[in-house]
């Protein structure tokens, strides 16, 4: 019991997750800066930002609904932290594993998006409302390819449990190569979920200031930013677990290092994508997802179905 609590709160749970998330934000910003020929922030910048925000006063707009306005960031943060404990990191098993955990994780990862919407909508500021509506509109564009992409390997493994998917990879070591399209689809969809350029439409600075986050300040803003950072780690870990099954049997230390490399590689890819594209318009983003990403995901599903029907059996 006490050990479980340690797992959840300290390692690899909340504390480790927060520290790693902040460090990953630093890594992302550093890479982003270096790609743009800048110096970038010092290593403690995200942490310092977090501490600074936490120390500041929370302002709730008078016209806002205080309950939803305050609850949204907290629920969002809780949801992403909860999702993390179901993801296996360096071995095939997570802290708490059961059949169907992959579905639970996907739903837990949807909650922050909805919280951003609710927080933005109940801020009642015009920028926030436009941002909130854009958040949800965008959700309909990326959520389906994300589900299709992530569930394709599950189809192959014939299980809704991540542990069993990873077990399947141990039995069939080269099958990850067949899921590369799914990896690409999931990366694009996750990028949209994290609202990073070119999909940063809901918080497009030059149009709607900070979108749904415009009215947030102090601790609540710190939570929102932390949510996005942790969501990035959770999403990257999930992708690493499902699509990059390397170093699973090499013991905790090496396995852990391999895990870090995998997550940072995904973060690095995100930084590059952030650097080389211009922000899309919301209509372009939806058209892009439905015209290119969803068909790609379908191709992946088709490949897996064929694999399952012909080769495995």
């Amino acid at each position, binding site marked *: 019991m006490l050990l479980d609590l340690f797992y959840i709160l300290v390692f690899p749970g909340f504390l480790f997750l927060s520290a790693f998330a902040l460090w990953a934000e630093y890594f992302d910003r550093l890479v982003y800066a270096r*790609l*743009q020929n800048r110096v970038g922030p010092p290593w403690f910048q995200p942490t310092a930002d977090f501490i600074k925000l936490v*120390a500041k006063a929370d302002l709730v707009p008078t016209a806002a609904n205080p309950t939803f306005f305050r609850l949204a960031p907290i629920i969002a943060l809780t949801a992403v932290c909860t999702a993390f404990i179901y993801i296996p990191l360096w071995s095939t098993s997570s802290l708490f594993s059961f059949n169907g955990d992959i579905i639970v994780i996907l739903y837990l990862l949807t909650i922050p998006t909805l919280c951003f919407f609710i927080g933005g909508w109940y801020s009642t500021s015009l920028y926030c409302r*436009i941002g909130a509506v854009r958040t949800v509109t965008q959700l309909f564009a990326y959520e389906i390819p994300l589900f299709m992409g992530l569930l394709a390997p599950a189809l192959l493994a014939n299980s809704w449990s991540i542990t069993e998917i990873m077990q399947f990879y141990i039995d069939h070591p080269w099958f990850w190569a067949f899921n590369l399209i799914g990896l690409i689809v999931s990366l694009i969809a996750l990028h949209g979920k994290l609202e990073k350029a070119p999909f940063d*439409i809901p918080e497009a600075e*030059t149009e709607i200031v900070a979108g749904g986050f415009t009215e947030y300040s102090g601790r609540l803003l710190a939570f929102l930013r932390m949510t996005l950072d942790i969501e990035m780690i959770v999403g990257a870990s999930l992708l690493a677990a499902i699509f990059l099954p390397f170093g699973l049997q090499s013991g905790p230390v090496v396995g852990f290092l391999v895990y870090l490399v995998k997550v940072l590689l995904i973060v690095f890819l995100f930084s590059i994508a952030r650097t080389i*594209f211009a922000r899309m318009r919301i209509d372009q983003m939806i058209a892009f997802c439905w015209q290119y990403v969803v068909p790609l995901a379908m191709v992946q599903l088709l490949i897996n179905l064929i694999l399952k029907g012909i080769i495995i059996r």
Partner: protein
Amino acid sequence: MSGPEDFKIPLGPQHPALKEPESFSIALKGEKILGVDIRLGYNHRGIEKACESKSYLQAVYLIERICGICSHTHSTCFVQGVEELAGLQVPKRATYIRMIIGELERVHSHLLWLGVAGHEIGFDTLLMYSWRDREVVMDILAMVTGNRVNYGINAIGGVRRDISQEQIKDILAALKTLRERTLYYIEIASKETTIIERLSGVGILLPADAIKLNAVGPTARASGVDIDIRRDDPYAAYSEVEFKVITDNHNDVYGRTVVRMKELLESYNIIEQALAKLPEGPIAVRAPRKVPAGEVLSRYEAPRGEDLHYIKANGTEFPERVKVRAPTLANVQAVKKMLEDRYLADLPIVVAAIDPCFSCTDRLIEVKDLDQGETKILDWQKLQQLSIKYNQQRGLDFTAAGKRLQRLMEK
């Protein structure tokens, strides 16, 4: 829950998309723009009035500060007008130097614009790169004129500083780098999918509308209107160099980008020609303090379009009337037209595409006492004390850090 229909959202006077305070009030239906109200005038500093109490010599520096980016534009335009009034024959070398600085300024302005445009469409990498490259031309300007903006090189009757042989070498070397970079940006702008998607078809201004709304500069040229003061009404030494007037038929923001990028290449050509045949001789003639009575209309092709100055002299040391029409004022009318049936996401780039310079437009320190009543003004120290108190109440003490800062400041 009602839908977000018929929003009226304010963009400005303070807004991340605008680098200067102007207010756009946008009626929205969902993401679509129904109508735009533009309120200008936040930068009105009374420069036209202030000119009337400054001598011609002082007014040059005041006029130069109408705008930071196109400072040479305004000062040259004004100085040309005064020279015409006073009947001064400006030495050849001075006109060449003015032209060179003017073109360097255009390069600096267009590169700045490219960065801003990149930022408006969420492409910060382009902003970082083009502003880094802009430093090259800024350094050249600082070396030749003595400052990075507000060059202060114009004087009535000529220029204040000469260009030396070493400086010519440095300028030519810088142009080589800049040309390489510009070609790269042209390639990026014409190949990168996301940029093309965001720029083409956005902010359409048909040629007929451009003429009807009297658009000027790159905005008009991108709509196929072939106008350029440098060719049509030559000043400085533009009649002695060869250059093309760039026009484009895209009629949209993409066209404006292309026009500006190609104009950069033309500017490099002009500077190289001018440096190659820079005539020897004096750089200025003595100017009288008093200017004979008369009136003059002076025109100049600013990076953003046609700049006009009307100057009326009354025979004293002080101008009777100075009127300035900056290019943005001519183009801002076209923005409403360009925004018809566009999306909210297009607004920043459409506004940016005319390269608006609102401080030019508004000109005119508000100096009138308006019986402000009791406004509580907190000075820096009071603010600092308040924040220290606030943090101490929450158990945070930054006294030690504050002391260190104090020591650093004193050093």
